[in-house]
């Protein structure tokens, strides 16, 4: 390596001699370069693998790098290419019980998001996790997951994850770190210096216990909490109302009328999966156990909740409290009487809503959004209390996450005042996501001893003195509470790939326990915390099911101490900037995850680079078109971003998505989009007025997966309202043909005939099915350039259509996988019979046989086929999925072949084999496709059509059942249940009156 530098820069011998002469005592030097102490040498030291540096800087693929690492490992093994030592080794003849090569094993574990637990089952092959499913018995999952949980597999194997301890940017060792830590601890214990902790929202009892321990050991310790996506308004609002902070849990299985006040209850929050199941899972008027609730959404940014609602009202975020106050006045909430006339919307609309809520009484619920101020939370809960809903459709418990000593703003202030001598930042990235006004990065540089522990050497990891790699949740022993307080356990399904540390290990080290076993740290906590003699048995069963029984926080009915405060005054004109979490990247932590980057965001269908959402009215006023770049200026700071015209966006509201614009996310996420945190106000509000918009000349190429937003008058998606359905139950089958004819002979299905039914009543458009399918079926990532060309590879897409006026359209979702047509147009045109009809009705792709004429795709009316235009899965491809993340049961496709949804044929075959081995018939529900399994609202049914009693057969017998494009006589096996919405007739009448005007 010295030769590299010498060659490039030469060495000034005379200068070296001078330098040596100026030294006294014994001084060791390793090379002339060290002596010269040149910048180059310093840089060389900084790089762990200097020869790899050009590769790191270049756009080397992740697979490529993994390959390089594997090769170096293999070369390392070559040193063993000499006579083997004479040792006894044991052949693998007596395998551990139930461990069969090629058979998956499942482990219950937990994935945290914003600190809240989601129970999952992790599928592993020979100790390699490959897929995440929801834990059906876990209260926060009910068997479903979101896209982010699905994508954790890819995150686990991400080669960009941090792999070493770093000190001031160079490779460090844990010994050196512990040495420094030891010295620091003495100062903390003596009270000479102050240790501060910064964590995310933290619900883990064991971590919390360790923090408490730290505080006991070093009494000056302060614990700060930074939640980039929530500002504590919920806690504050409930404290205002009830005198103490309470956490609301919505029991939507009991609610008949639900009002969502900018909460996006189906798309965000720790209970979104449960909300989706309870609110949307039984919205089928043809079912006996139907739950025909009525959903109202008032939202400042179109979301999947608004799209799924019966009534959706676009309203700028700042005006939502005023609406809630006017509503409270109508309902007679004490202290609100003077707010009745202050409605920012049509009073008649509000009257109808109030009437509906009043009628529902205890079965109504109002849900305030976390991005809204405390005043709205107080108002919403006052309404709930007044309606009698508290205790039935909403329950209150103590906050799940214990209170910390302050938030990021407090910490930043303390840092600015020089009151922070040591700072441990645990799984947070404030340098990236702190509002610019806090000047966090500059202040961090002044903290003498700063330690960052995170999965990535991210912006904060680079700015901190020490960086410790954190273990991935799938590698960790940990615990966390679910939204209802249930303690969920995390058990590792693989040893830390890159030697990361768990949060408990780091906290224990700070408390003086070095190199502790992460498992013991969690177990020790629970050995003390769990009463009863038989800890081992208790612990074992808790691990097995994934959570500890009886740990849900008890619900209690809080007493109303105060009347809600009046809503903060708002100006009703001027542009308003709003911030929302990116639906896929969340707070930005997942920016380096290609599955999530390429996930079409609900409604916009944008992948990769995001854009600021503007209303059609604003676009018209400013003459903006999609992709045009604008400069948004707020309080002296500005941000250049492309815009996206979002129908249904409140006229004067501009929404920026948080989570993009990462500087040091990794090779996938760096520089994608812009960092909207920069513009956020210091105090953490998610909306701000006084923003100016300046149109820039240039445009950005955005990668949307859907170019056309209306249905062109075609009845692909059928929907009506309840009244019409009751009048005409067969509305979805206007020209149903009982015995369709065909020139081709009918197929014979002696065993099974698989089919799918997708319920448009339940589908909330969350896109979890897309990521689940991607994870299950080894679907490659193609990158923004290819998406722009229309070459995304997802096997299932969720079409989104708008209907009605541009400013306030209704929004509809329709998941479209392969239809597996009975008379498939793709089958007869393939010249090599690479796509065929199976004996169980599947339309199968034979990749080996495919020559890539693409005729099948041309002839597919549903356009569900995907083609490998390039070798997306090649090891050197730019965004290749690491081989370890692949599902071993599914072929990895190469260049030039067509692919499409297989109905998860590998799962079908596995289930059939199991049933055959056990000599029993395959039971309905035993076999589920990946999209079906992940769906939070159970919108997808899959099963055997030969079985008249199977769930899918019953669904297809419904009068709501219809096939898309059935006039083509393709006879799809995937059919839809037409949507039936449940609007308020009073509001419908209102809208009908307004429509002509």
């Amino acid at each position, binding site marked *: 390596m010295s030769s590299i530098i010498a060659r490039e820069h030469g060495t000034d011998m005379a200068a070296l001699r001078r330098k040596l002469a100026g030294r006294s005592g014994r001084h060791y030097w390793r090379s002339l370069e060290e002596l010269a102490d040149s910048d180059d040498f310093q840089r060389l030291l900084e790089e762990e693998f200097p020869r790899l540096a050009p590769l790191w800087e270049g756009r080397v693929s992740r697979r490529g790098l993994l390959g390089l690492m594997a090769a170096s490992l293999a070369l390392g093994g070559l040193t063993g290419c000499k006579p083997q030592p004479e040792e006894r080794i044991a052949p693998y003849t007596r395998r551990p019980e139930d461990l069969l090569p090629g058979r998956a094993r499942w482990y219950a574990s937990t994935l945290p998001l914003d600190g809240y637990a989601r129970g999952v089952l992790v599928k592993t092959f020979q100790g390699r996790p490959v897929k995440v499913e929801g834990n059906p018995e876990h209260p926060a999952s009910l068997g479903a997951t979101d896209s982010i949980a699905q994508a954790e597999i890819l995150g686990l194997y991400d080669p960009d994850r941090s792999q070493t301890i770093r000190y001031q940017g160079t490779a460090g060792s844990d010994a050196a770190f512990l040495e420094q830590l030891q010295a620091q601890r003495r100062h903390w214990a003596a009270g000479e210096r102050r240790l501060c902790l910064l964590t995310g929202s933290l619900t883990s009892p064991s971590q919390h216990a360790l923090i408490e321990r730290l505080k006991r050991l070093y009494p000056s310790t302060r614990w700060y909490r930074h939640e980039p996506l929530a500002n504590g308004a919920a806690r504050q609002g409930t404290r205002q109302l009830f005198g103490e902070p309470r956490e609301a849990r919505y029991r939507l299985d009991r609610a008949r009328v639900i009002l969502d006040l900018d909460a996006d209850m189906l798309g965000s929050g720790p209970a979104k999966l449960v909300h989706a199941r309870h609110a949307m899972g039984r919205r089928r008027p043809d079912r006996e156990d139907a739950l025909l609730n009525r959903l109202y959404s008032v939202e400042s940014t179109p979301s999947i909740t608004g799209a799924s609602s019966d009534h959706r009202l676009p309203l700028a975020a700042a005006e939502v409290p005023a609406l809630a106050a006017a509503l409270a006045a109508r309902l007679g909430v004490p202290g609100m009487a003077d707010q009745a006339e202050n409605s920012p919307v049509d009073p008649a609309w509000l009257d109808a809503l109030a009437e509906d809520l009043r009628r529902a009484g205890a079965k109504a619920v109002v849900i305030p959004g976390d991005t809204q101020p405390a005043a709205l939370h107080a108002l919403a809960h006052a309404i709930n209390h007044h309606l009698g809903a508290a205790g039935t459709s909403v329950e209150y418990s103590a906050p799940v996450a214990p209170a910390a000593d302050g938030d990021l703003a407090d910490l930043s202030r303390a840092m600015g005042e020089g009151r922070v001598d040591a700072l441990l930042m645990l799984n947070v990235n404030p340098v990236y996501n702190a509002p610019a006004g806090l000047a966090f990065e500059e202040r961090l540089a002044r903290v003498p001893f700063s330690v960052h522990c995170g999965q990535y050497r991210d912006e904060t990891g680079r700015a901190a003195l020490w960086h410790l790699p954190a273990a991935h949740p799938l590698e960790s022993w940990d615990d966390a509470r679910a939204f209802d307080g249930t303690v969920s356990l995390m058990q590792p399904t693989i040893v830390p790939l890159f030697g990361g540390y768990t949060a408990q290990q780091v906290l224990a080290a700070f408390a003086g326990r070095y190199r502790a076993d992460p498992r013991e740290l969690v177990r020790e906590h629970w050995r003390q915390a769990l009463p009863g003699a038989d800890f081992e048995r208790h612990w074992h069963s808790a691990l097995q099911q994934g959570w500890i029984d009886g740990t849900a926080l008890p619900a209690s009915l809080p007493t109303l101490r105060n009347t809600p405060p009046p809503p903060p005054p708002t100006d009703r004109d001027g542009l308003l900037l709003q911030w929302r979490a990116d639906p896929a990247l969340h707070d930005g932590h997942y920016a380096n995850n290609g599955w999530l980057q390429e996930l079409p965001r609900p409604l916009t269908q944008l992948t990769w680079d995001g854009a600021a959402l503007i209303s059609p009215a604003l676009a018209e006023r400013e003459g903006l078109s999609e992709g045009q770049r604008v400069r948004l200026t707020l309080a002296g700071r500005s941000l250049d971003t492309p815009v996206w015209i979002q129908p249904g966006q409140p006229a004067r509201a501009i929404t920026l998505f948080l989570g993009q614009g990462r500087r040091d996310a990794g090779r996938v996420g760096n520089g994608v989009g812009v960092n909207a945190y920069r513009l956020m106000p210091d105090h953490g509000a998610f909306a701000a007025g006084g923003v100016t918009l300046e149109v820039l000349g240039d445009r950005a190429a955005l990668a949307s997966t859907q*170019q056309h937003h209306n249905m062109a*008058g075609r009845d692909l998606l059928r929907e009506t309202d309840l009244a019409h359905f009751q009048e005409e139950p067969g509305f979805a089958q206007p020209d149903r043909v009982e015995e369709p004819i065909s020139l081709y002979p009918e197929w014979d299905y002696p065993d099974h005939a698989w089919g799918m039914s997708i319920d448009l009543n339940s589908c909330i458009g969350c896109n979890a099915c897309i990521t689940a399918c991607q994870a299950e079926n080894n679907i490659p990532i193609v990158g923004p350039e290819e998406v722009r060309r229309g070459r995304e590879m997802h096997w299932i897409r969720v079409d989104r259509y708008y209907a009605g006026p541009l400013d306030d359209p209704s929004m509809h979702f329709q998941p479209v996988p392969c239809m597996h047509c009975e008379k498939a147009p793709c089958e007869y045109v393939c010249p*090599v019979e690479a796509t065929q009809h199976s004996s169980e009705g599947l339309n199968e792709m034979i990749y080996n046989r495919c*020559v890539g004429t693409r005729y099948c795709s041309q002839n597919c009316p549903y356009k569900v086929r995907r083609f490998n235009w390039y070798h997306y899965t090649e090891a050197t491809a730019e965004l290749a999925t690491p081989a370890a993340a692949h599902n071993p049961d599914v072929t990895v496709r190469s260049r030039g072949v067509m692919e499409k949804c297989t109905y998860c044929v590998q799962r079908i075959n596995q289930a059939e084999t199991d049933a055959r081995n056990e000599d029993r018939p395959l039971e309905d529900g035993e076999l589920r496709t990946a999209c079906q399994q992940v769906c939070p609202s159970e919108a997808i049914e899959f099963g055997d059509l030969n079985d008249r009693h199977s769930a899918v057969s019953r669904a297809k017998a419904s009068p709501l059942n219809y096939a898309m494009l059935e006039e083509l006589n393709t006879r799809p096996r995937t059919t839809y249940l037409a949507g039936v919405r449940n609007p308020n007739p009073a509001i419908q009448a209102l809208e009908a009156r307004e429509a002509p005007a």
Partner: protein
Amino acid sequence: MNRRRDELAPPGLSAGALTDRVSATVLGTRPPRAWWLALGLATLLSLLFLVGVVYVLSAGVGAFGLNIPVAWGFPIINTIWWIGIAHAGTLISAVLWLTRQDWRASISRSAEAMAMFAIVLAGSYPLLHLGRPQFAYFLLPYPNLMDLWPQWRSPLVWDFFAIASYLLFTASFLFLSLLPDLASLRDRARHRAVQLFYGVLALGWRNSARHWHRYQQAHRVLAVIAVPIVVSVTGTISLDLAVSIVPGFHFTIFPPYFVAGALYSGFATVAIIAIVLRALFGFRDLITRAHLNRLGIMMLCFVLVVDYAYLQEVFTAFYTGEDFYRSVYYDRWSGPYAPFYWGMILCNVVLAQGLWFRRLRESVPGLLCLAVIAEIGMWLERFQIVITSTHKDYMPSAWDTVTPSAWDWLTYAGSIGVFVVLLLLFIKLMPAISMHDMREMLHRRKQREADHG
């Protein structure tokens, strides 16, 4: 006066003189400067083609501007375009021979050569189009242990056989008709090597009556086979589209419409080649204005059929009462690819009407312009059929557009270069005008004059 204008060869041209003149273009020392210039330019273009092919084969078909829903693009357009061009060659050499059209004699050779090279290019595009061209042989019904056969219901298999049989047929027809001329060249060559070259190719042709008898028999058989082939090959290609259920592809009128279109562009190509030959080798008296006139008339015939098909297609689309078909037309007229549609209408419907005028047909620049317009128009027609049909078909959510990439244009322009190189080499190595066909024609003319005394 009229008779003079209709003259197909200079009066009093003897068989010997004709053979001297034509064989001199092959055996003579130096080809004209223009030939070298054209060859140089065309070689450059064909090198670009080579670059394009190598790139596409190594990187993948993603290099083309294609996506889902528009998974077919330039390779398919160009296949149809080239195969269409090939068709006129067969029609001239076979159908016009069977109907004893004297005017075919001087242009039949170049038309056959044109057919040959066009079909080679038409056949190479499907390979470029394939995602995995290394497995193109899967389309062959070759014996294998897995008992796998191609799928006979797929028009692409029919297509494969159509193109393959057409290639075989064209090659044998071209070679057969060359035999007597190759023997003439062998006999006139001075150099031993040249004698050997043509001698081997002439397969021992000795100009005996028996040889002529067999030649006539073989020629007649091939010509009779050719008649259905002219119709069936392009007809089959059109089925690639028509058999699908894609609105914009699925029209029963496609086979005759495609045949007419093919012949229109083919005759245009023959006209261009004839005009170039006249200029290059001074064949103005052998390929006369009368020839150009007749080529123009043929173009007019077929373009009128094409225009009728356009009308019929629109009628069908609207008569179905189906929104899918109608919206394809609305989109063709006003969508993102409307310039291609209206460009096609301008070329094939508006400007093509110039063919009605004899003055234009007989004028060299006039016919050249009309022929080039025909080529462009027919290419645009294939573009709008292939691209606009699936870009907006059944599912609005899947609608998308494609932009042709540099590789699309490179392989297209390059293929024209390859075609020109092959043709230039051919007219230098082989007699560009069929000497024996001309002699036969002169002989018949002399007989006719003797009869009418």
